[in-house]
């Protein structure tokens, strides 16, 4: 549907369920992809599956040096970074009163600060090219809050404000900055929930089911496309109606 032929996309967290699906969808639309993540083996497996136009660029976004190096490694591998998908994220859930400074800062560092740093680094090339797409994967909990996830919700809501501010600054240069906010998606993370937890969650979702990673990837592919050039500073909620915000 959307043609990304000739575009180069860096996807962080590509070893996870949603990130892998995003990389697959962008690749299927014709993009060259650089797959980043902490675990190299699944990235290699995905690169083999995709075949041509796929590069593996492992990086641990909790490591400041790795964050600084990643944009250049990706640009060297692909020639440029035209599309940046900030998908990587971690959780360190805990009740607010029990949350340590470390749990707070680990989540903010990886989920918010690294996105700022990666985005800043790729902007130079996008400004020169007068074309660029940044898509940040947030979460429904950034809009609704969630008990036990004060750090995660803060980081995800922070991404929304950051994206809007950056969207203002670079809109005149053909660069868009948007967010996709998944609800509950079937991944290894949600597989760990027991049946009781699952049925509770499903009760809150008008669609009556969890989402598929491919449904997040489709939203990302749209926002990365030329057709979405007039959409910027937006958050696209993909949550089966769980939160209509």
């Amino acid at each position, binding site marked *: 549907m959307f043609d990304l032929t000739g575009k180069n996309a860096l996807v962080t967290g590509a070893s996870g369920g949603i990130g892998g699906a995003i990389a697959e969808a962008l690749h299927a639309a014709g993009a060259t992809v650089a797959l980043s993540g902490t675990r190299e083996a699944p990235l290699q497996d995905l690169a083999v599956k995709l075949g041509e136009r796929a590069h593996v660029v492992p990086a641990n976004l909790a490591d400041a040096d790795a964050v600084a190096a990643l944009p250049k490694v990706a640009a060297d591998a692909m020639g440029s970074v035209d599309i940046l998908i900030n998908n990587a994220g971690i959780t360190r859930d805990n009740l607010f009163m029990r949350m340590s400074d470390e749990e707070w800062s680990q989540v903010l560092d990886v989920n918010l600060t690294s996105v700022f740093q990666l985005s800043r680094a790729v902007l*130079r090339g996008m400004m020169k090219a007068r074309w660029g797409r940044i898509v940040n994967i947030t979460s429904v909990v950034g809009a609704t809050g969630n008990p036990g996830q004060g750090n995660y919700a803060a980081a995800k809501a922070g991404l929304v404000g950051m994206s809007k501010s950056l969207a203002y*600054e670079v809109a*005149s240069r053909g660069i868009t900055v948007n967010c996709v906010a998944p609800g509950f998606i079937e991944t290894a993370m949600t597989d760990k929930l027991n049946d009781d937890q699952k049925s509770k969650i499903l009760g809150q979702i008008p669609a009556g089911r969890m989402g598929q990673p491919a449904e997040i990837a489709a939203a990302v592919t749209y926002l990365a496309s030329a057709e979405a050039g007039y959409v910027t500073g937006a958050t696209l909620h993909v949550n089966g109606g769980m939160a209509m915000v």
Partner: protein
Amino acid sequence: MSDIADRVKKIVVEHLGVDEDKVAESASFIDDLGADSLDTVELVMAFEEEFGIEIPDDAAETIQTVGDAVTFIKGAV
């Protein structure tokens, strides 16, 4: 005009889309040539590439006019 001044002028004309005769040494990028703050960042990037130099942020802030740019670049190349 020196070679550096000519090259700076050419970049400014191309980037800001202004008439060449407006790009005087004393012309301020923002006040006289209609640049916005992002334009000034892009001009600094263009100077860095044209002359193969690094212009640190604190130095970039002092480059307000065409003449400022020429002076800085002369000292850096």
